[in-house]
């Protein structure tokens, strides 16, 4: 009995302590009131942690977004900063807002999607709080231990944070999509430090597309150097993608050569995707490209070079001239 209690007691004490202390703040990403799909992946990561979840929404459309976020399954409270100063997600004042709400709310964990926005803002928060942030996690082992890919995804590091506050960005493709509709969270005003912005937003040039969002699409068709020019890229890759309702991606070589827009780059320094189906056309499969797609469920490679490294990760490989194979495949997909 003595043995049993000595083992049990610390365990119980620990779980009680965790329940009291663990509380998570998730930073909601939206553009002009339209929620980014990745918020739901971040939410499911937050739910894995187990503590109460608070969501922070900021911007001139914050109230509208907050009422949607309040329905997210698992969110207990939504903090709203209705202030147009946060509309463009500028890191300087946004990070002040986040830091202020972490301090006020006493959160132990802060999660945000590892998007361009999350990666821009969250590390700056860590300067205020003096903690080392943890980037792009793919797995939660426990409340302080996380797995993250390093070296272009060739290595997985399991790290244990000794900081009192865990500032974390989430690799969306590694977490399932959380559900909406069941929740009824309380909506409250956030602490708003109203810091003056130190930079000014001038303009944006976003690629307009009717196709699914690359980061969250279930199917992706990507083109590489093998397409030779932009005309071929447009003529072959887009119809192939459209025939199965896929998003379009590109290798760095294709982007650098001007075949496709920068925002379509899949890889270590571009987007990381993990769709059900990834079709790589004319892509050799450099380490840096594989980093962005090798967790896809099924990978198809179409390349005339049978030695291309892409075939080492492909479930189905077709060694053929893409200029013959892609139009055929497009026709057959349409049927």
């Amino acid at each position: 009995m003595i043995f049993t209690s000595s083992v049990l007691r610390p365990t119980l004490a620990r779980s009680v302590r965790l329940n009291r202390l663990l509380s998570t703040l998730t930073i909601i990403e939206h553009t002009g009131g339209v929620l980014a799909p990745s918020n739901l992946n971040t939410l499911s990561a937050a739910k894995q942690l187990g503590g109460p979840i608070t969501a922070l929404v900021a911007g001139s459309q914050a109230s509208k977004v907050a009422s949607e976020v309040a329905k997210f399954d698992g969110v207990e409270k939504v903090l709203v900063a209705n202030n147009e100063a946060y509309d463009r997600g500028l890191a300087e004042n946004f990070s002040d807002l986040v830091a202020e709400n972490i301090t006020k709310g006493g959160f132990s964990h802060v999660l945000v999607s590892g998007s361009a926005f999350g990666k821009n803002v969250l590390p700056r928060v860590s300067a205020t709080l003096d903690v080392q942030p943890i980037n792009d996690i793919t797995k939660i082992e426990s409340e302080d231990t996380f797995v993250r890919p390093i070296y272009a995804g060739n290595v997985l590091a399991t790290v244990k944070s000794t900081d009192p506050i865990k500032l974390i960005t989430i690799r969306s493709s590694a977490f399932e999509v959380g559900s909406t509709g069941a929740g009824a969270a309380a909506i409250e005003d956030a602490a708003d430090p109203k810091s003056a912005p130190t930079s000014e937003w001038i303009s944006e040039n976003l690629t307009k597309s009717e196709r699914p969002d690359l980061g969250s699409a279930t199917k992706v068709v990507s083109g590489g150097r093998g397409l030779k020019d932009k005309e071929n890229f447009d003529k072959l890759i887009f119809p192939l993608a459209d025939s199965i309702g896929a998003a379009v991606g590109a290798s760095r070589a294709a982007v650098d050569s001007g075949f496709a827009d920068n925002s379509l780059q899949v890889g270590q320094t571009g987007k990381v995707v993990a769709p059900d189906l990834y079709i790589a056309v004319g892509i050799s499969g450099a380490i840096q490209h594989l980093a962005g797609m090798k967790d896809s469920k099924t990978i198809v490679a179409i390349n005339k070079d049978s030695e291309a490294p892409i075939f080492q990760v492909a479930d189905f490989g077709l060694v053929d001239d893409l200029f013959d194979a892609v139009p055929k495949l497009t026709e057959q997909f349409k049927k």
Partner: protein
Amino acid sequence: MSLRILVPVKRVIDAAVKPRVNKTNTGVETQGVKFSINPFCEIALEEAVKLKEGNKGLVESIHAVSIGPTKAQDILRIALAKGADTSTLVDIGKAEAPEPLAVAKLLQKVVEKENSNIILLGKQAIDNDSNQTGQILAGLLKWPQATNAAKVVVEGDKVTVTREVDGGEETISSKLPIVITTDLRLNEPRYASLPNIMKAKKKPLTAVKPADLGVDITNRLQTVSVNYPPTRKAGVVVGSTEELVEKLKANGSL
């Protein structure tokens, strides 16, 4: 206002090398492995040199700094050969590589010492893939930040940066001083010529220790283990597009 540019550069395992996990699963094998300057740092350095070359009198100085083992002086020499004027090595000896938070704190001290007013650094190191140092440094200094820069224009004390963001680009503008992190498409880094490599040997390289700067570089994250990701099972080569469609239908992909 003339620019005193600071360019932090990192020594990393060469981008073309596939890293190997060590036998004890505590880190990545570094013995006998080729090291290079981090590609994003090269782009940052190139941008500093281009600002200097393209605008007469705009750039007062370019100072390169690296935080790493004694061998990191090799990449500082490359930076000097490519156009940096002076350099600092923060020699960590055999200590574990410091995390972005500690690196940012060390850089903050160098910024103060060099009186820098613009910091150009890579958006991420290709070894730890953190993408944090520039943002943390900007936060510590309370300077504006422009990350993932695809274009940088300096006019007087105004800096306009076009950033690569999800879905496209955005342009922001700030006043000096500023921290800028560079994306891949900002420029095409030059090679160092042999005469410049020779000249670089005479350029100043000051070595300091983290303790000299009063910064504790103890890591906040303990590495529990380092492993390879699960390998994918071998795929099959199909003979025709028809067979491919069949297989995709059979496994539920279509």
